[in-house]
């Protein structure tokens, strides 16, 4: 028999818990609702789940506290999706720094929640957590550069933040996950496609040249991302985790 994914929903609002549970159940998931941190803990002592949906704003222990607790305990590998009433870059970063895997702002559409849950589960299943260096590291070092995977910007030697566009960031992560390996344009295109895949239409070449500009690479003699004639591109240096994800 196929494994049925088990999702724990922690939210203080009964109606939202029930509506979400009902929707997810109808879409083939096993769902357990919990009203607060206490219920969540007592359930997790007995059983294990594949994913936890956690509301940030709750009376008692709020979602950030619970998330930190989860990441420190024996459920550290269980992915967490945060729900919050605030849609703000600062909150996103705070949530991700606390160890959440994804983040969804209230009010949300149920099908968006389902899509995110499935995406996280797929990612968690496909990739052993430590294979992808960009998943494991919060701060990745290569050459004289560091990439902050939470704030999503580059830091130069002086600590000045160099902002990246969404597409540039995704492409750079692909290179950092495959250091010193030649990647073809097709591979890059596939690997770079994120959730906003349909929006990504620009050619890889243009994106690489933008990324080289960000890395202050000389276009004729790039030192970071080198062109391999007829094959593709390669990140010409090793990558190390400067600071691990908490």
């Amino acid at each position, binding site marked *: 028999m196929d494994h049925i994914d088990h999702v724990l929903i922690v939210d203080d*609002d009964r*109606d*939202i818990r029930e*509506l*979400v549970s*009902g*929707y997810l159940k109808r879409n083939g998931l096993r769902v357990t609702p919990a009203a607060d941190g206490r219920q969540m803990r007592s359930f997790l002592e007995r059983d294990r789940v594949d994913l936890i949906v956690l509301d940030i*704003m709750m009376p008692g222990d709020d979602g950030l506290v619970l998330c930190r607790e989860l990441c420190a305990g024996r459920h550290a590998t269980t992915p967490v999706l945060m729900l919050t*009433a*605030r*849609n*703000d*870059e*600062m909150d996103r970063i705070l949530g991700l720094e606390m160890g959440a895997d994804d983040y969804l702002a*209230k*009010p*949300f*559409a*149920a*099908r968006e929640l389902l899509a995110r849950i499935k995406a996280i589960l797929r990612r968690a299943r496909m990739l052993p957590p430590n294979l992808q260096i960009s998943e494991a590291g919060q701060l990745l070092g290569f050459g004289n550069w560091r990439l902050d995977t939470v704030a999503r*910007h580059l830091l*130069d030697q*002086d*600590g*000045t*933040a*160099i*902002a*990246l*566009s*969404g*597409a*540039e960031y995704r492409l750079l992560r692909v290179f950092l996950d495959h250091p010193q390996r030649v990647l073809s344009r097709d591979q890059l295109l596939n690997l770079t496609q994120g959730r906003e895949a349909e*929006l*990504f*239409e*620009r050619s890889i070449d243009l994106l690489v040249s*933008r990324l080289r500009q*960000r890395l202050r690479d000389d276009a004729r003699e790039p030192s970071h991302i080198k062109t391999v004639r007829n094959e593709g591109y390669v990140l010409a240096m090793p990558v190390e985790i400067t600071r691990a994800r908490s």
Partner: protein
Amino acid sequence: MRNRAMTGAIRRFSDFMHPPRTLRWRLFLILLTGLVLAHGLSFGALVLERTNAAKAMMLGTLEQDVATSVTLLDRLPPEERGRWLAVLERRTYRYELGRGLPGVPDLGSRGAEIARAVNGGAGPGFPVVVEAIPGDRPHLQAHVTLRDGSPVTIDVTPALMPLAAWLPLLLAAQLVMLVLCTWLAVRQAIRPLARFAKAAETLDPGGTSARLAEDGPSEVAHAATAFNAMRDRIAHYLEERVRILAAISHDLQTPITRMALRVEMAEDTPEKERLLRDLSQIERLVREGVAYARSAHGDVETPARIDVGSFVESLAFDYQDMGKPVTVHGLSGAVLTTRPHALRRILTNLIDNALKFAGEAAITVTRDSTGRIGVAVRDSGPGIPEHQLTAVLQPFYRLEQSRNRDSGGTGLGLAIAHQLALAIGGSLTLRNRQMGGLCAEVTLG
């Protein structure tokens, strides 16, 4: 022509009479005038008193001296008198044997006093005639006839003891000290005012700006305490506003989420689409309301050093990747310490605005002569009427004509951008471009 010249003169006069603009100068002038006047008067009185005393003393001495000298000369044999003249000579008068010079009997008040003294000194036994000798060195001569009939002339050159050379120096030194002390006193009085003005200008109730030091003279300390209390009250109101807005929005968000979930799970009807649209509009308003309430507190984010060029470019590229025509021009390589999320939010709001009303946006980064960095978002849309350029920065302000109507905006985008710009120590200015369209510029230190 003459009329105009006169008006000019009157104006110059009234300008001259007009009190100076600054309190510093006014206080300085008042204090200094009073002190110099008082000082001058007492100095004058002192000199007058000294003159009178010296004069009285001189006349008294003269009288006694003349009595002694005339009696002495009278007793001496005529051939010995010449030897004694040098002994009898004083600073202001000397004795001569002979008739002296011819003069006029008009003596003046001073001469009369001297004459009285000489007369009194010589005594009744010696007839005296006092005359003024005009000339470039006017002096008096008293002609006395001794008992043996020989004439003696007393030549008097009236002169007071000259003032000591150091006295004017002392006066100048005192005046300089007056000026300095007045200046110090005025500065002392004005400084707290300047401090208060600066504190009020940079007032940032929620922020980390230092409180006014509650020390110094008791009045100043009292005012500083009151100022700090006012600052605390404002901070309290601001906090309360944020807390209320956040509470309302959170409490609204839960029912909105419930409604959205219910509607989503209901059957597909034309009503469902409309409901979802309404819900998303309410949701946006709530979200923007919180964003606005929180925008007054730019300091929740830690400042970071950012490369402005790549910051603006990455923003524009994100728009371009979504198929929106946003271009970047100008300066690269500028580094700035700021709160990047706030700045991103400001620019996003401005760009969204430009896209909504003009369908395109151009971002320009400039640096002015004082090193401040300006990020301008320009469009070629309809612009905003001149007299409403500042009003649109207020929350929920709607333009008279339809720039904003039915556009789905919440009326908070520019207000949030404006507040955030202030919160991160910058400013936001809107102006219409000459060739049409709006230019919204964020200036950062």
